[in-house]
């Protein structure tokens, strides 16, 4: 039985609690609906910079937070934070006996960390600039570039680390504006999982979060480009290139999400059995690194296939990918491929059941879609998928009007464009 409880405080804060019997550990975190999709060109990257500032243990303007973070760390609690396109999160994992203090620390982060000294601010800007420069110098950006090609440089197409110039020119006042307009109870979800007692936990939550001021949250209307496109960064001297072909797909809460995950596994899983790995790496030796990925958001999703290859192989790899898309569109996947992919996904989800942080992040992701899911329900949905469900999803997704292309390296983009055709 998946035991889960969802309540709201009077100030609008949503609290999700998931009790895992006999567990001696806990994980808790706060998810704020503020990410790069809420940003414009002028402030792209500031949600991420703010996350760095909020979790910075050197913030002498909030001695209470410094004391608390020091105490929980001394007890072996691990803490971390993350910014995505849709959320900023702060979370702790440790022994269940530390829950009280972890909840207090979380409240101190979001309720009191709104003042930063100029020294701390400038120093953290340098750190974030280093992170951004490193990101933009690597092929790791290809997944986000795929979303950018598919949805535009707007909404979920916005890059999380943002603009170098924006970060350089950021000021403390802007940070405070983001906190005031987005770090509000109604825009946040507190999630607690592990060996917890619901009543005691609610008492802790009330004690530390009931005073969080119920302010208005900024409005937001999600927009994307009307049609998918291309992202390319051709620079001479790159030793190899990365390419990605992506397709617009369903949102996180869509029933077809599991079908998309199956398609992703069969076509591009980095294990040696997937079709693209077979065709690109095993048969032709064109690339070492071949893979696929899915990114699901509140209102839409991305299915992408990537390869890192020699500069002069980009066109051939693209053509092989397009041939494989054509094949599955016409002949579908075999029952055995679907069965294997379902088993791989089921195993992955069962492993997540034993991982507190994975459970926490799963519920954090659910909070964005405004729905509650359970990992058990996910496994049930997976088992119920029939071959024809997968084929219907293939027919819906693998059309050129849904397709985008992203690539970085030293290659001839003009030569590749004509290859971007399914069949």
């Amino acid at each position: 039985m998946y035991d889960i409880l969802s309540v709201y405080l009077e100030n609008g804060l949503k609290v999700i609690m998931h009790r895992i019997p006999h567990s001696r550990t806990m994980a808790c975190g706060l998810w704020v609906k503020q990410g790069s999709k809420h940003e414009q060109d002028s402030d792209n990257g500031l949600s991420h910079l703010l996350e760095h500032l909020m979790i910075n243990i050197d913030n002498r303007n909030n001695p209470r937070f410094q004391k608390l973070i020091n105490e929980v760390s001394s007890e072996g609690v691990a803490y971390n934070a993350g910014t995505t396109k849709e959320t900023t999160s702060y979370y702790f994992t440790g022994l269940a006996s530390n829950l009280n203090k972890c909840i207090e620390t979380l409240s101190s982060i979001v309720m009191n960390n709104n003042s930063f000294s100029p020294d701390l601010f400038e120093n953290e800007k340098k750190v974030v600039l280093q992170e951004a420069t490193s990101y933009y110098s690597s092929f790791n950006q290809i997944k986000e570039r795929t979303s950018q090609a598919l949805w535009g440089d707007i909404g979920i197409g916005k890059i999380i680390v943002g603009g170098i110039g924006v970060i350089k020119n950021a000021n403390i006042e802007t940070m405070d504006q983001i906190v005031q307009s987005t770090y509000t109870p109604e825009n946040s979800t507190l999630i607690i999982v592990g060996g917890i007692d619901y009543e005691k936990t609610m008492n802790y939550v009330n004690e530390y979060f009931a005073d969080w001021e119920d302010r208005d949250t900024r409005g937001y209307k999600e927009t994307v480009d009307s049609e998918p496109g291309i992202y390319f960064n051709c620079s001479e001297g790159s030793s190899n290139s990365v390419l990605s072909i992506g397709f617009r797909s369903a949102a996180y809460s869509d029933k077809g999400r599991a079908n998309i995950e199956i398609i992703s596994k069969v076509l591009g899983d980095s294990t040696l059995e997937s079709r693209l790995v077979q065709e690109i790496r095993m048969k032709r030796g064109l690339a070492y690194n071949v893979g696929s990925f899915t990114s699901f958001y509140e209102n839409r999703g991305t299915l992408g296939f990537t390869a890192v290859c020699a500069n002069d192989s980009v066109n051939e790899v693209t053509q092989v990918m397009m041939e494989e898309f054509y094949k599955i569109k016409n002949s579908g996947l075999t029952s055995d491929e679907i069965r294997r992919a379902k088993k791989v996904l089921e195993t992955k989800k069962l492993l997540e059941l034993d991982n507190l942080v994975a459970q926490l992040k799963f519920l954090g992701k659910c909070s964005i879609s405004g729905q509650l899911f359970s990992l058990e329900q996910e496994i049930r949905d997976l088992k119920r998928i029939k071959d024809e469900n997968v084929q219907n999803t293939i027919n819906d997704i693998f059309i050129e009007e849904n397709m985008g292309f992203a690539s970085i390296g030293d290659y001839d983009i003009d030569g590749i464009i004509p290859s971007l055709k399914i069949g």
Partner: protein
Amino acid sequence: MADIPCIQNLAMINENLKDDILKGKAMDILLLLLSGSKTVKEISKELDLPSFSIQLYIKRLIESQLIKVTEVKVVEGKVEKTYELASTDVEILNYLQENSKGKEETNIELSAQHFSTMTRNIIRNIDEFKHKPHKIKAYFIKSDEESVNEFKKELDALFEKYQEMEDVDASETYGFISVLAPYKLK
């Protein structure tokens, strides 16, 4: 002065743009935008080129500041951008467009031809029709902006005079192409 080699050399002004113009696609887009602002979808349909190709050239034309986004419409959460020429001083085919008898004919004219092709065709026709009036001139001078602006006014007047000669019932078509722009600014 060696006329034809000079015109060939003109293509070397902007390496990025040279490629586009010579391949014709970027110029096709520019010419299409002379008839008004358009979306990628509209350009793709009218030129019968894949959307990806259009987006590639649009990106380059924007980077070269030859075109710009003129309107951003949001319909059901989806953004549609409309593009137009960045400068109203591009008038290559305005006259052809204004004098075309029907819209359909205009589209055929604009999509079937592009600047470089027209230039090459005119040069080839000089050999074929040596007895007909023709002139090719290219000259590179060092000068100041004010003087060149003065000259530009005279060039505009000359173009107007040329346009006034139009006789839609005449059997021969003549072309007058002029390019006046900075060659080297340093």
